[in-house]
């Protein structure tokens, strides 16, 4: 379990990083919490590792026009320590402690989580429930991708090769907006067997599940039912959701657990 040999560069600017990423088999590294194990398992074998840790352009949290813009290199631990996040994005605040363990949250980044798009990761689902955006930048300049269009498959996103995630944008909580979060993990810090995020504004309800499919998924049937406050119908509507099993739970179990998580998150959102 030793990584194959690779070149390593630590650019100081975004433009320099993008230039390096244009090289063949170049891969960015952020917190390294997912990439380094993949390299050691030889599931990833980049020829060139472009370290994003020197890029000031990718750091920082700013609020404007009802949105919070969070630099891609912002660590989970920094989010947990940010009053803007804790107060302005309660759903994210609620989900953060469920990501792994403090040591991993000290290194792991929000941009890394979105770029990786692990189907069981919390942050992509949070972003999906909130209707957030991912900002990417490549040689052709920046573009913004809606959370609904971000994950395109298992560990696949709308990011083009050579592009970097530079920021994540989330709407600040509106007055009266309600949130619910629940995940079912066997041990604290594990990826969940099933999890769900709910953001509700009046009768507009967004529901994003994680750890039940190849990507974070919205549940339109459940959203419609919850818009009328009918949680039983919302759970029943999960029957139509495409669900993949994993090592620890088959699809039937996941569907059942998704329903349990939905009830509990809804209870939280409406309490």
């Amino acid at each position: 379990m030793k990584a194959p040999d690779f070149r390593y560069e630590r650019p100081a600017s975004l433009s320099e990083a993008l230039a390096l990423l244009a090289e063949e088999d170049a891969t960015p590294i952020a917190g390294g919490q997912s990439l380094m194990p993949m390299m050691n398992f030889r599931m990833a074998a980049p020829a060139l590792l472009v370290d994003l840790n020197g890029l000031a352009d990718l750091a920082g949290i700013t609020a404007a026009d009802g949105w919070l813009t969070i630099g891609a290199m912002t660590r989970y631990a920094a989010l947990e320590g940010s009053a803007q996040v804790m107060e302005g994005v309660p759903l994210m605040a609620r989900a953060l402690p469920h990501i792994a363990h403090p040591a991993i949250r000290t290194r792991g980044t929000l941009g890394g989580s979105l770029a990786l798009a692990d189907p069981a990761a919390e942050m992509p689902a949070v972003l999906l429930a909130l209707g957030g955006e991912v900002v990417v930048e490549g040689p052709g300049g920046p573009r913004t991708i809606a959370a609904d269009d971000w994950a395109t498959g298992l560990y696949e996103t709308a990011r083009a090769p050579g592009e970097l995630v530079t920021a994540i944008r989330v709407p600040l909580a509106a007055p009266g907006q309600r949130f619910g979060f629940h995940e079912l993990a066997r041990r604290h810090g594990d990826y969940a067997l099933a999890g769900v995020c709910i953001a509700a504004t009046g009768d507009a309800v967004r529901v994003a599940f994680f750890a039940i499919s190849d990507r974070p998924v919205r549940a339109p049937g459940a959203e419609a039912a919850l818009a009328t406050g009918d949680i039983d119908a919302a759970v029943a509507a999960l029957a139509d959701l495409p669900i993949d099993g994993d090592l620890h739970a088959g699809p039937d179990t996941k569907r059942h657990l998704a329903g349990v998580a939905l009830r509990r998150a809804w209870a939280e959102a409406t309490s």
Partner: protein
Amino acid sequence: MTNPLNLFDRPNSYIGKTVPRPDARRLLEGRGRFVDDIQLPRMGHAAFLRSPHAHARIVSIDVAAARAHPGVIAVFTGAEMAQHVEPYVGVLTHLAGLRSAPQHPIAVDIARWQGEPVAMVIADSRATAEDAAELIEVEYDELPAACDAETALDPGTPVIHPAFGNNLAWERTVDVGDVDAAFARDDVTVVERTMRFGRHTGVTLEPRAAVAEFDPSEDRLTFHYSGQAPHMMQFIFAKHLGLPEENVRVVAEDVGGSFGIKIHTYGDEVATAAAAKVLRRPVKFVADRAESFMTDIHARDHVVEGRMAVTADGGIAALAFDDLTGIGPFSMYPRTSAIEANQVLNLTGAPYVVPNYRATARVVFQNKNMMCQYRAVGHPIAMAICDGLLEDAAAAIGMDPVAIRRRNLMRDDGYPCASASGMKLADLSHHKAMDRLVELMDYDRLRAENAALRAQGIHRGIGFCSMVEVTNPSPMFYGVGGAPIASQDGATLRLDAGGGLQVASSVTEQGQGTNAILAQIAAGVFGVPIERVRVKTGDTETVPYGGGTWASRGAGIGGEAMLQAALALKSQVLDVAAVILQARPDDLDIRDGSVTDANGTPRMTLSDLARTVYYRGNELPSDLTPELIATRHYRVTDFPFVFTNGAMAAHVEVDPDTGFVRVLDFWAVEDCGRVINPQLVDEQIRGGVVQGIGGALYEECLYSPEGQLLNTTMADYLVPMAGEMPDIHVAHVETPTRTSVLGAKGAGEAGTGGAPAAVMNAVNDALRPLGTSIWQMPMTPERILKALGRV
């Protein structure tokens, strides 16, 4: 002769006291000396290419590109390695009928489990070795595999060793009394269950690791390894590499946990030693985590069909079961993979009076990693069978689980006696332990609380286990069957000129604190402050000959040898002191580093005495021949094993919506005889309980039907973690064993042996009012939801 009792009340006795471990600070400061810390000149690093298939013929193997890769020192195929290593077979004569096939360190012609080494690369770094391993081209002809133990004996299943005709490795039946008649009685209630125990493994913090050095000028192999039985490995390397035994030195310094997985002969280690010998340069192999999951022995893997008959007043009328266990394609060498099943037959029901008992074990080959002895060999199965059925029966006849135990447990004043399977039992305290447990957990209050919560939709359960643990084994465990495994151990104490003691023992330290208790015994029995004792273990060149650490024998056997050696040295020193001080030896004592008179008044320091002996022998009468070193050995006689007992209870909450189980509390009352260091014993119990909870709820090596191991990372293989663990309350009953002066039995495996049954019983206590129960470990959320009919 000193009155043995006085040994424990002496002014500077450390026995029975919590004394900090002498190595704790060193390890905490990062100054451990683990195998991977060893850096030697010209050392090569080994990586193995492993079979990706559960069963495949190796049609061809092309290592040319790997050999040519820059930095590569050597590449060995199985056939090449076989020229240097005599194959080994994991059978023992006392396990009559056990068969296994000759095994090579690296597969020759056929690979029989996914993960079996197929080629070995040695290079200037591990990374280079892995690079080169990827360049080896193997053409496999995949063979049909026999993965599922439950179908291993079916006629259509491929036979792994065709010469055997089928996949049966071993079979044994115990039949006592008239079981059929007892089950046929019309005044008994019969419960019947199929229990499944998944595979798990001992996830050690430090993986298996080895550094082999060979000096051709002396024809001498030095093998540093992370292991438990240096002298056994000395024999094995000598025999299979063709070296004189005395030319093999095996060293095990700091070991980061072992739990039994590091007591077996692994092809990786044998190949590492052989490569060092062939290449005449040091070779290092350190298993990575994925290799550990794939190739460290797995444990358990049983399917049991069990039945119990009880009378209306809860008396056990009969217990019967069939156990089927899958061991992989070979019986592990040299301890064999039949011991686990043998223990299940020997131990099931041993805490109770069981008048009619029939048990059959079938041990089968399969194309999976090998299964062998891991902490609490066979115990969790044995305890779950009997205590699981007993609580099931109690529920069936409406009896309290504590009451049914009191009805059936062997009487505390009835020893020595024998269990149904014929195990000789002595000095046990099941009733005392159960009484203490009930008091400790405030049983009646807890029951009432559970009943009240049940009304509110909170589903809690209490489960018990009364258990025995095999400790301090005699030669009847392995030696009798021809295994190169010492059952006796030795200790040496040497008084040095400075007045301190250098002591050496043949038992080993795996992180459990053996070195601490050896120092306590040496210091207390001989009479010096514990800081004046230096302990050496784990080096065949410098310690007495012995068995090492397994079967909870370090304190009981190694400790008694140390006690006897300390008494011997004391007597030798007092003989010298008596001459110098013109006194009678019987009127002198050794306390706190000085020779004293009987009431404790110092007469001369040990340093003065030793310096006189070592430097100024001219002052001593010429007919005095002082010996300031003493060695004693000890083995258990008259009993095959020294059994311990314990009573444990788990309190759990089951969430019927999710199938999640939370262990709220755990209590363990243990009788390991004399407790030498309360803190170390308590932590052994707690660590064991945690591993038991792991087996009951979390840990499982998951295979695909084709024999692919699916979880090879710590993210996918769930070890129990601190956050989920309950408080574990430990208390003791102390019934010293009659087999030694020290009176210590073992304590290392009790928790692992008893906790799974207690947790299973607790989960079933919670589930029963919901109309179901679960008999499969680990009890995962999915399995519980299925038992509840929720999915």
